[in-house]
């Protein structure tokens, strides 16, 4: 499931975003195997704090054991895998309010704007606070629209 600024953008919230894409995968073993396969196809390398150059690692379902967040570089750009986004309990939690958006001929599961806002509030970093006005304005507009 796509989360973060791109997920908000796919729902019409005009957030400035970085080049990376944030996703939260389901954490069952089968999905972790699919995720590892997808990362291998993307020639993903792990980016670790303090190192400029990403490193090659073995990518299989065991790679993700105990991980909360992993940042990768891929042939298509940076990709962050976030198993438990701030302020949430992970995929199963986000799935409750998630939507499916069809773009580029692909059905893309995206976290709801309310959940993205919840996560950004919990993260509490300056860049997350900077996104809040647009997110809150969208939620206000959505609420007014549903009341009409």
């Amino acid at each position, binding site marked *: 499931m796509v989360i973060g600024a791109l997920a908000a953008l796919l729902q*019409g919230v005009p957030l400035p975003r970085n*080049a990376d894409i944030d996703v939260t995968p389901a954490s069952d073993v089968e999905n972790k195997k699919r995720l590892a396969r997808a990362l291998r196809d993307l020639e993903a390398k792990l980016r670790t704090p303090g190192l400029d150059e990403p490193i090659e690692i073995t990518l299989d379902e065991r790679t993700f054991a105990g991980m909360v967040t992993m*940042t990768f570089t891929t042939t298509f750009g940076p990709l962050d895998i976030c198993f438990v986004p701030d302020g949430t309990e992970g995929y199963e939690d986000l799935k409750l309010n998630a939507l499916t958006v069809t773009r580029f001929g692909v059905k893309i599961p995206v976290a709801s704007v309310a959940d993205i806002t919840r996560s950004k509030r919990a993260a509490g970093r300056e860049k997350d*606070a900077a996104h809040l006005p647009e997110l809150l304005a969208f939620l206000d507009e959505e609420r007014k629209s549903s009341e009409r």
Partner: protein
Amino acid sequence: MTNWAGNLIRMARHEKGLSQRDLARRGRTSQAAIAAYEAGRRSPTLETLARIIRGAGLDLRIRLEKQDDHDQWLARYEAGLPAEVVEAWRRRDRELVAEARSDSTERSARNRHGLKTTP
């Protein structure tokens, strides 16, 4: 520097369903000051910010965290991208927003006319 303090005030107000005037009264300041903080035209002192947040019935907590270099790394990565790639990516983002808004308008119109909405 983004408008961190103003965004926190706005977030507190939103969470508690308060107008700028309500929060100004509770935080012992003026509505004009709240509006200026939220718009980033002025910055409150830390003490003022804490008092305003308390006025909303919330606490401002500050903590130190280990530095995360991810954003700096991303900034370097983005700086290394050719300008046309960045422009194409920004343009695609704008198109995605426009497309989502168009979908949403269409859904609202269909709802108003009692038509079935496709997911």
